[in-house]
């Protein structure tokens, strides 16, 4: 658990991957460009002394991931968000099956999400059912700009996508994480356009829509939609690392999010391995809103808000009992491996005031 001024904060990193971008897994030049672009994001927002080499970045493996996530108690849990990209990578870039390598070894520490692609039709429905049956998934990560043959993307408000959302509802897969990030689609229609979330969210009020990367570079569209749809949440991955080298901008983005969505609907995520919670959690926890932004927006980045954004909001969505986890983690395998027992030993209850 992260400790700040004697207070504990339970951290759920709500956006992590175990990917494979080794050259022998790449089958399309898009696969190489994709990992190179990720690496540019990595080096842009990672402190110089914490940057990885390209070779380890391509494939870091399960052990390294466990150590990076939990070794210094930066994160207590992680939520896997798969990114298949099967047209680019032979075995996929970061599939549910790949992530399951760790999630099944440490089921208490990881949440495993699945995915669907409405272009797969009936086969896709079967795959979703299979994922649910095999791994008991309660969330899906959706990559609407994924290439598939001639298709360069799909929309969440397509009729076919609604069929899959109905299936999610039927199976009890309540958390839908559409990736809405920078435009990479080489076409004019914008497959990361966030507007398709609007109709989906109002049509499926019982599902939660966690828009990853808070829609950047469409923060404005995202906030406006989220302000009207109570089941729309914002995932901080990509916005979070601004805390490291653009603190004023981070203050501004966070202030907007807290103003438009409120402190109950923003979730921390590192986007590991683009960024490492090892240093990023501290950067976000120690970040401060500028006096100008606090005055302008009337919001605070205080302990209560941090507890919600860093863990409690994700815990609510995924039915995670933080107190129970805390007891379990006092002597689980990971706490033993990294000597973390003290982090979970305190009798002081974690915030349960809501």
């Amino acid at each position, binding site marked *: 658990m992260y400790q700040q001024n004697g207070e504990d904060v339970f951290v759920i990193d709500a956006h992590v991957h175990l990917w494979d971008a080794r050259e022998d897994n790449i089958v399309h030049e898009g696969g190489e*460009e994709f990992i*190179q*672009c990720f690496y*540019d994001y990595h080096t842009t927002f990672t402190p110089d002394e914490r940057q990885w080499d390209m070779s380890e970045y391509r494939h870091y493996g399960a052990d390294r991931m466990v150590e990076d996530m939990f070794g210094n108690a930066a994160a207590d849990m992680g939520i896997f968000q798969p990114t298949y990209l099967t047209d680019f990578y032979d075995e996929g870039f970061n599939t549910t099956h790949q992530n399951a390598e760790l999630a099944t070894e440490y089921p208490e520490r990881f949440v495993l999400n699945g995915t669907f692609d409405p272009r797969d039709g009936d086969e896709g429905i079967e795959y979703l059912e299979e994922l649910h049956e095999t791994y008991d998934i309660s969330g899906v990560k959706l990559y609407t700009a994924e290439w598939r043959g001639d298709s360069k993307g799909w929309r969440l408000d397509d009729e076919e996508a609604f069929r899959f959302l109905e299936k999610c509802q039927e199976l009890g897969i309540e958390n839908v994480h559409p990736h809405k990030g920078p435009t990479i689609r*080489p076409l004019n229609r914008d497959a990361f356009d966030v507007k398709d979330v609007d109709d989906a969210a109002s049509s499926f009020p019982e599902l939660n829509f966690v828009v990853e990367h808070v829609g950047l570079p469409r923060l404005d569209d995202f906030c406006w939609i989220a302000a009207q749809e109570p089941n729309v949440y914002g995932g901080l991955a990509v916005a979070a690392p601004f805390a490291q080298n653009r603190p004023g901008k981070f203050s501004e983005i966070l202030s*907007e999010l807290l103003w438009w969505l409120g402190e109950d609907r923003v979730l921390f995520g590192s986007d590991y391995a683009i960024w490492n919670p090892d240093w990023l959690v501290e950067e976000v926890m120690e970040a401060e809103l500028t006096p100008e932004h606090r005055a302008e927006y009337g919001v605070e980045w205080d302990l209560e808000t941090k507890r919600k954004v860093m863990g409690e909001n994700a815990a609510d969505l995924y039915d995670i009992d933080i107190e129970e986890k805390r007891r379990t983690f006092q002597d689980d395998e990971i706490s033993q491996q990294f000597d973390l027992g003290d982090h979970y030993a305190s009798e002081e209850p974690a915030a349960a005031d809501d």
Partner: protein
Amino acid sequence: MSTPDSSDGDSDRGSRSDSDTVGPDRAAVRDRLDRVTDPELDRSIVALDYVDAIEIDGDRVTVRFTLPTAWCSPAFAWMMAIDARDEVETLPSVADARIILDEHMHEQEITRGVNEGRSFAEAFPDADGDVAAVRAELDEKARVARQYDAIETLLDAGLDAETIVELTVADLERSAANPSAASAETASDPTDDDEREQLSIYVQNRAVAVSVPAAPIDRYLEKARETGVVSAPDDVLFRTPEGQPIDADSFDLVHRRGRLAQVNMSSQGGICEGLQAARERRFEGAGDD
């Protein structure tokens, strides 16, 4: 923050070395390019340091540019390339402008398409339509972001929400001696004049005039006209992001959406700047990669 002159290696500021040829002055070309914006960031491609080189050969101009990442939307790249070509070709001394996009996943389609006068749909046969809709949407966002600065200027001058939402184009009157600086064709450095210029805003049935800096209002008006929300003299100046007149009760919310649009653009600008720097470091370190 950015230095417009750092984009090409030649020492060209104030240089007249090209003037003995039939071709244009390098400064005039760059001034034209300075009017081309990254449509997502609403900032000049010169200020953003995308322009790598300006080559002048008689009355032919070649402009090379690079974007922050190979994944930058091809539609955005296309818009910038087309705009650069069109802007440079407005110079009477230029017969032909050639635009080359480097280090982009679709550099060939874009460079060939733009220089051969094809449409986006011809250059990208599997596209769903044309780039006009994307451009219109980004222009709307730029308009909303600029509206924030314009309205802040009016609030600073003491106007209230009820007054601001009812202002029309006809309520604006330019009070400085140089009313057409913004449209001068090759003004060498119009910035200083622009900064000082004032507008008079007539309120209370034209009984009272309030003087405000003209630049933020002009910047807003430029986009408002481009997007068609303001054309006739009696059109209300300011609109919701959806283009509707603003109800005074929702003034604060609409104004906040303008602020949000700015935060969005500047955040994306931060990401682009970072990617650009990271990519340059990678190319420098990679040799012939």
